[in-house]
């Protein structure tokens, strides 16, 4: 009881010990501008996406043909009722852009989860078991890389019929290559370390070694790839929707909005500039976050 109240109190453990790796990591994180800016803006975008039903000024599907193609507020003819103007169907562009963030993030995230599970399982298995197993998985990865992803995705989506679910599954089943490549090489490095040998010698089961020795140590690399793959998936979804074979109208997807605005772009350039800029900012933020996490968790891998 008397320990903390005595005037010459004992020093905290933190004052004696070296800062822990976690503390060092936090320190690096707070000094990393890219991470803070990218992460901060991304958090804002995620907030807007989630809160869109409450903060969007209009229903993104509500068509009003008397209010077609109102310019944004920085134009002379802009009105505050529609801060970013309206599209060719008279739908509020600000509301559609906000809901578009929802669509992009939803697709980006779920695609990343699907491809992450596939790629990570393949990569870790190849890296851990090696030998013939590794050969087969490397061959599968090489085959996947040889197939033009966007072309295959377009063809399959067109044949099956385009919908958000189809797009998510097709992209998820196609984009696992980077997960597999990175997880394979990271696992290979860790597999030869002493603590894995120790766990094997102690008679741990393979599953336990994978779960308690390998997984925690490849986790940082996994997070970095996962972040960058969200950006990759968002970009591909936008490209598919732009070509008309992704998310279907009237769903507000940024790629689709750019495609719809394309016809008016010479006289009403904001129709493509606004969703294009939104897409650009989102990708930039995700990439900055991913690069930042890599710098902070593994500064030695920076170059």
């Amino acid at each position, binding site marked *: 009881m008397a320990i903390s109240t005595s005037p010459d109190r004992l020093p905290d453990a933190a004052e004696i010990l070296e800062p822990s790796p976690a503390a060092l990591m936090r320190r690096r994180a707070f000094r990393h501008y890219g991470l803070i800016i990218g992460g901060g803006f991304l958090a804002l975008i995620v907030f807007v996406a989630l809160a869109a039903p409450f903060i969007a000024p209009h229903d993104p599907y509500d068509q009003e043909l008397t209010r077609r193609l109102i310019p944004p507020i920085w134009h002379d003819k802009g009105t505050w009722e529609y801060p970013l103007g309206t599209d060719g169907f008279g739908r509020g562009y600000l509301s559609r852009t906000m809901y578009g963030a929802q669509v992009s993030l939803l697709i980006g995230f779920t695609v990343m989860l699907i491809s992450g599970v596939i790629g990570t399982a393949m990569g870790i298995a190849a890296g851990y078991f090696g030998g013939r197993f590794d050969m087969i998985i490397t061959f599968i990865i090489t085959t996947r890389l040889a197939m033009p992803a966007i072309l295959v995705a377009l063809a399959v989506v067109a044949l099956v019929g385009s919908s958000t679910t189809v797009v998510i599954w097709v992209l998820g089943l196609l984009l696992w290559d980077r997960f597999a490549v990175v997880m394979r090489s990271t696992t290979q490095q860790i597999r030869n370390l002493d603590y894995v040998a120790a766990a094997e010698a102690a008679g741990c089961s393979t599953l336990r070694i994978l779960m308690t020795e390998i997984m925690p140590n490849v986790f940082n690399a996994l997070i970095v790839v996962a972040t960058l793959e969200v950006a990759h998936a968002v970009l591909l979804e936008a490209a598919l929707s732009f070509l008309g074979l992704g998310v279907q109208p009237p769903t507000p997807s940024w790629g689709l909005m750019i495609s719809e605005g*394309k016809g008016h772009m010479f006289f009403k350039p904001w129709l493509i500039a606004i969703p294009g800029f939104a*897409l650009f900012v989102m990708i930039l933020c995700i990439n900055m976050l991913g690069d930042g996490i890599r710098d902070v968790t593994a500064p030695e891998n920076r170059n």
Partner: protein
Amino acid sequence: MLVYAVKRFGLALLVLVAVSVITFTLLRLSGDPAAAMAGESATAEDIEYVRKHYGFDRSLPVQYWDWATKAMQGDLGRSIYLKQPVAQIIIEKAPVTMKLGAIALTFALVLSIPLGVLAAMRPNTLVDRTALTISVIGQAFPSFFFALILIYVFGVALRWLPITGTDTWWHFIMPAVTLGYYATPAIMRLTRAGMIEVLGSDYIRTARAKGLRPGIVLFKHALRNAIIPVVSLSAVQLGFMLGGSIVIETIFSMHGIGRLAWQSIQRSDFEMMQAIVLTIACFYIVLTFLADLLNAFLDPRIRVH
């Protein structure tokens, strides 16, 4: 070297076969070629007739074998829509896409290698940081959006460059820039990393100590070694560009393989889609194979593994 080359060639062939099997199966499972051939107004009997007539009622492995044996003799089938041999159409369209890819890669290399070298000479300085920042920002631009910006600025506002077509070299500038800029960050980073590593090595210090001119040390001694991994990356990137050409060629209305792919997808032209995926995969496989060989030639250590 010969053993290595033969092994690699065998692997490349295997990958090509695997790609063809997967593409064939994937397309057949996704849609019905008989229905696509019969057209939209076809009745169930019509479709059934087409299915029988063209053998789509047989099992998939049998159909694949049939297709593959013909493909090996150079017959990739006939386009349902264009009523011409698929191989002939692809050969007609290929030069545009290859020209586009070559210009795009040249653009990417001309931009990224000097930037990478510059960044490596002064790591963590303003030059380095600026180059990295530009590459990060560049990578965030979706290619189709970037293409539209270029069209708006250089095609419409300034009227410097033509927007559509493939008639002159001028027509290739905007598409090649759009296709190529996406590869620059990766090539730049790899050049930079390679140069930093090489510039710190002993033989560069020796070369400098001998009093060689800095330019010679930099380009003859350092860059030549640092560029080796860039060769294989360029091959991979060129392969990706051929795949990405579908978006770019569609936007700029260029009559290459990419736009053909887009049209075939819209027409459910099975034979055509299959052949195009295979052609692009083939390009990629040949490119990576050549890059592997070139690498092994340049760096004897690779051959041993």
